[in-house]
């Protein structure tokens, strides 16, 4: 190859490089426009803000330094270092699969409690008369605060899949935080129509915009059944912190054993409670024993429903705790402790 040919090759390469760079810049600008269009089209541009967005060749969409403005708590400060949509599929314009992850999701539980704007007297009275067992579900936020959790810095991963023909939806969420611990929840919901799926999307949207997400969720779950449920929780201080609070509540003096551990009487109470939902006393006793063991030495606990077991949500009634208990027992859920860190 002559010298002039080499020069021509170099010039061509430079031209390609310049064109390529120019195209990347154009693409990036296009990505920004697309995402902005997506948010504006769904009227979310005022409630979701981000610093940077990117769409990779492999269809990864990443937003960086995202913050959300919740409708109920417009002043709640929060930040997501990066939010990535790993995969997105649609079937007849209905999202059929979404895989996402959020890195370093930060917010303050105290900030949420302050943004609830309850009258001061109610806050004080509720906390002064806080029942350490019943009120965990009635006032979960206060329970977390009493356990000593405040600033959350979590990693979240999630998968959503929906098969319109089969009317089946699967959800899987993994949540990990220094204080709240590691949660891994999976569930399949059956008999979910297209309209109900829409209610689910609406519920998510109504966390950010005006609306009633609880009502949407209720509509979403109407006539639904649950199967393939599993929940794995690994404690990293939440239980210990809550036990410390319970010990102060029951005046545990120095040198005395913890008063928050479950004794035989407490275990018997749990067995009796479970037995109202299902008369299988031996299994109920095993569950209660496992719970007691977990509270005594918090590690990893796993709730796993039996394969192919299905439980209709319409069949459940009573308080939230009773409905939850009924659901788990109808699904033949086993409770087990796992050794070692996940």
């Amino acid at each position, binding site marked *: 190859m002559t010298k002039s040919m080499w020069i021509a090759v170099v010039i061509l390469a430079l031209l390609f490089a310049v064109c390529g760079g120019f195209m990347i810049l154009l693409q990036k600008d296009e990505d920004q426009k697309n995402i902005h269009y997506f948010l504006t089209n769904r009227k979310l541009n005022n409630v979701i803000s981000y610093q940077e967005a990117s769409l990779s060749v492999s269809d990864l969409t990443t937003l960086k330094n995202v913050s959300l403005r919740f409708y109920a708590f417009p002043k709640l400060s929060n930040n997501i270092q990066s939010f990535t949509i790993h995969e997105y599929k649609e079937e007849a314009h209905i999202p059929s699969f979404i895989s996402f992850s959020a890195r370093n999701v930060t917010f303050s539980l105290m900030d949420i409690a302050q943004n609830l704007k309850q009258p*001061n007297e109610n806050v004080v009275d509720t906390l*002064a008369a806080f029942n350490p067992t019943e009120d965990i579900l009635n006032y979960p936020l206060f329970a977390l605060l009493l356990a*000593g959790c405040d*600033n959350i810095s979590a990693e979240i991963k999630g998968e959503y899949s929906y098969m319109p023909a089969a009317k089946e939806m699967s959800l899987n969420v993994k949540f990990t935080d220094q204080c709240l611990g590691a949660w891994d929840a999976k569930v399949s919901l059956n008999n979910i129509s297209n309209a109900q799926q829409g209610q689910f999307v609406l519920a998510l949207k109504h966390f950010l915009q005006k609306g009633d997400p609880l009502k949407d969720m209720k509509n979403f779950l109407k006539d639904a059944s649950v199967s393939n449920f599993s929940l794995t929780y690994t404690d990293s201080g939440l239980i210990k912190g809550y036990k410390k609070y319970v010990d*102060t*509540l029951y*005046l545990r*003096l120095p040198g005395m054993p913890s008063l928050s551990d479950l004794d035989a009487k407490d275990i018997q109470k749990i067995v009796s409670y479970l037995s109202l939902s299902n008369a299988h006393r031996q299994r109920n006793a095993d569950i209660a024993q496992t719970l007691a063991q977990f509270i005594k030495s918090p590690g990893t606990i796993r709730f796993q429903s039996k394969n192919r077991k299905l439980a209709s949500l319409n069949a459940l009634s009573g308080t939230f705790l009773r409905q939850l208990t009924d659901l788990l027992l109808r699904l033949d859920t086993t409770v087990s402790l796992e050794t070692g860190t996940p």
Partner: protein
Amino acid sequence: MNSFFKTIVLFFCLAPFANAQTLDIHTGHEMKRIAFSAKAGVEVFAEASDGKWCEDILSLKIFAQDETAFGDKSLSGLMSKIALVLNSECPSATQAIIDGYSSNTLVFQGSASADEKWKPEKGTLKVKIQQLQAAAVKTSGNKNDFSVKKWTPPDGKQKIVARIDPDTALEHRIFSKDKECSILYTTDKPAAKLKKWFISVGGNSCAENLIYGRADVSVFNEKGDLETTLDGYFTEGRFTGKKNLNVVLLNRYGVNKNVQLLSYLIDSDMELKIHYISYLKSQRNQKTGFYSPWAGCSPFIMAAVTENEELFLESSVTDNILRTAQSFADIFCPGTTQMKFFATKVPQGIPGMDIPAESSEASPQEDTRLIYSAILQRTLGQKWKIVSDKTQNLARLRENTRKTEDLREHQLMMADYNELTKTDYLGRLAYMIGADRIDNLPAMLTAAAIIKKPLRVNLLINIASIGLDRAWADWPDAILITQTSGLLNRTGWHILSGTLRPMTEQEKKQNNKTAPFSAGVLELYAAAACEQDACGEVSDLIGLIRRRHEKPNWLPYHAPYGQGEINP
């Protein structure tokens, strides 16, 4: 003759009084058997002292083989026969306290009185009178000396000089020219002028520089002019007109310019702890400006000064004291027809009694120093009668009020008891300090953080260390306590009240605190120290209620066996 009369005849025939035997029963008192009936199975003893059993108030012990002897009918019959014995052998007896025993067990308590023809009355009221009188004797170690609210009259054996209140007593000492004699003269004229006044004395030897007894005294003013003549009797230099009073003067005081007073001791009852005091008055003549001679018989004013308010709770004791007062009226003012009697805890200064009432609206009932008051009148030769509708037994009124209050408090304490039996440990702690609740530190710190304001709290806390105006707790958590001066003086368990807030970021850094809701500051305003770890003393429910109500001997109805016993 039916069997009943046979029994009675036998009873009294076989019990000749002169041959009465003595018995020393477990009470430790000497007893004289005054009657018995072998057939009826009854023996009657009277309590004796130094071999003498016949007193105004008798103490009778009746021992019967059968408890039916103390039935209404049987006992009335028995007492009517004992009355015959008493009328002949002890006519001075007016009351009897009756204790009835069967099989060495006290089965009857009651009383009888001559006024009621010795009809037995079941109950312990009369017993109480005697006990009161006995208790009064026991209240003082020295039988011959006692004080009332730290006041005691001067010893009568020594020379008595009335204590003069210089602020209220318009009294000046005026000497004769040779300074051998003097009088104590009441006038509102300036003291500077009175220094130049003098007296001339006729018919008196002027012992110890003061005129006593009969004298004819002329009083001359600073110009040498005759001011007045005092012809009559003198007591310790004070002119009493035609009345010759040989008494122990106590205090000389006045209320205002127009009323001047002088108290004197009549008697001291060492057994009942009463000083009987009367008063002399000297009143200013508005027209002449002169003061009257000291007078105390119209009316005769008399006070029973005592701390023993309980004496006036029983009518019979009050009557006895009134009879004593009447006797003194006869001695000191034989011709007087009106007497004002009052019982008090102080020797002078009761409005409406020794001094004029402060206002017509003032109620003597409000004066806690006054125990009893009565106005008595008589026509000459007749008995004294209480006439005033203002007569009030304030002691009894107060006792009734106190009993009502006691009952009310007992009801409140019972309500507390019933409530506390259902209350948890924290509830009892709250009751101990009179608070609504004992708070939980993490819960209140969380609440304070949410509402962004300090909260008033009551906390059970173990103080680990005390510094200058601050302390650190180690339970329920290591929190800082400020403004401790004067409230905390030792480490250990306390119930603290104050305002609680989370530490600021700077305070957290200073004190090396990282946990979000255990870093608190309690600004202290009250502290109660526990006696036991974690105030474990509240487990003693009765003790807790007793301390709260300051009733150390209180017991609830149906207290469980062994609870509330007072250890000596």
